[in-house]
C-alpha cells in the first residue's frame, strides 16, 4: 500500500518512514528561515505533527514534499511572529522594570552546510535576509538554501513562475542595498 495511504490510517511505521525520508528537507528549510537550530527542531517537530494530524486533507493534487514545504514555511512564519510578540512584550516589561533580563539580539547564525571559506560571508548574508519581507525571504531560502527551481517555489507558495522571478529579483536587489549600507557603515566607523 502507498506510504501516504498508510499514513492516513495512522500507521506508526509509515509515519516513521515519512519523518525519516523528509526530516532533512523540513529541518533545512526551517533553519534557513529561522536561523536558529533549536527553533528549527521545534518547527520540524510541529510540521510532522501537523502533517500526521491533517494528512486526510492531502488530496494528492501536489507532491507530498510540496505539501510538507507549505506546512514548514507556514509554521516557521508563525514561529517568527510568536517570537517577535514575545520580544516586544519582554521589551515593554523591561521598560516598566518588570523584567530584569535585557532584550538580546541573537548572535550571528552559521549554517552548518556552508563551506568553511564562505562561513563569514554567509553569516552576513543571513543577517541581511532577516530584513527582507516574509515572501521574499521565503522565496530566497527555498531557492538558495533548498535549491528549488522557480516552478517548485511557485508550487510551494501558490504563485506563478513569473511572480517567483519578480520576488527573487526584488529580494536580491534589497539584499544588495542592505549589504551596501552595512559595508558603508562599517567603513565609516
Amino acid at each position, binding site marked *: 500500500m502507498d506510504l501516504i495511504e498508510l499514513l492516513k490510517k495512522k500507521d506508526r511505521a509509515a509515519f516513521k518512514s515519512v*519523518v525519516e525520508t523528509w*526530516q532533512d*528537507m523540513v*529541518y533545512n528549510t526551517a533553519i534557513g528561515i529561522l536561523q536558529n537550530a533549536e527553533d528549527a527542531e521545534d518547527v520540524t517537530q510541529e510540521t510532522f505533527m501537523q502533517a500526521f494530524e491533517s494528512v486526510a486533507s492531502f488530496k494528492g493534487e501536489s507532491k507530498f514534499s510540496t505539501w510538507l514545504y507549505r506546512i514548514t514555511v507556514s509554521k516557521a512564519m508563525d514561529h517568527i511572529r510568536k517570537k517577535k510578540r514575545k520580544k516586544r512584550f519582554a521589551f515593554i516589561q523591561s521598560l516598566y522594570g518588570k523584567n530584569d533580563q535585557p532584550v538580546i539580539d541573537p548572535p550571528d547564525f552559521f549554517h552548518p*552546510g*556552508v563551506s568553511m571559506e*564562505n562561513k563569514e560571508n554567509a553569516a552576513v*548574508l543571513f543577517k541581511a535576509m532577516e530584513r527582507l519581507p516574509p515572501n521574499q525571504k521565503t522565496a530566497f531560502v527555498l531557492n538558495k538554501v533548498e535549491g528549488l527551481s522557480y516552478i517548485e517555489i511557485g508550487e510551494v507558495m501558490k504563485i506563478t513562475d513569473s511572480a517567483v522571478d519578480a520576488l527573487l529579483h526584488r529580494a536580491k536587489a534589497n539584499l544588495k542595498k542592505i*549589504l551596501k549600507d552595512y559595508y558603508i557603515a562599517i567603513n565609516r566607523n
Partner: protein
Amino acid sequence: MEDEFLNKKIDDVMQSMDGITRATPRPFLFTRLEARMQNEKNIWSKLSSFAARPVVAFACICFVLIVNAMVILMSGSSRNTITQQGPELATADEYSQVSYNLYDFENAKP
C-alpha cells in the same frame, strides 16, 4: 576604486551560499517527536487546541455579541418601564410610602 571593492565584496557575500549542503537535525528526531506527541495528548492540550480553532473563537465572539445585544435591548425596555412609572416611584421615594421592616415580613400573608 572603493566602489569596485564594495561591489566585489557584495558579490562575494551574495554568492556565499553557492554549493550549500543541507543541514540535518540531531539524531533520533522521530523518538523525540513521538515523546512530544505523547505529552500533548493530555486533556488540557486538547482543550486549548479546541478553543484555539477559528470556528470556536468565532462562536465565542458571536455569543458575547448576542449577550451584549440582549443586555442593551433589555436595559432599553426596562428604561421605558422606569420612565412610565417615574412619577409614582419618585413620590414613593420622596414620601417614603414603602416601609421595609421585619414586622411587615413576619406578618406577610401566605
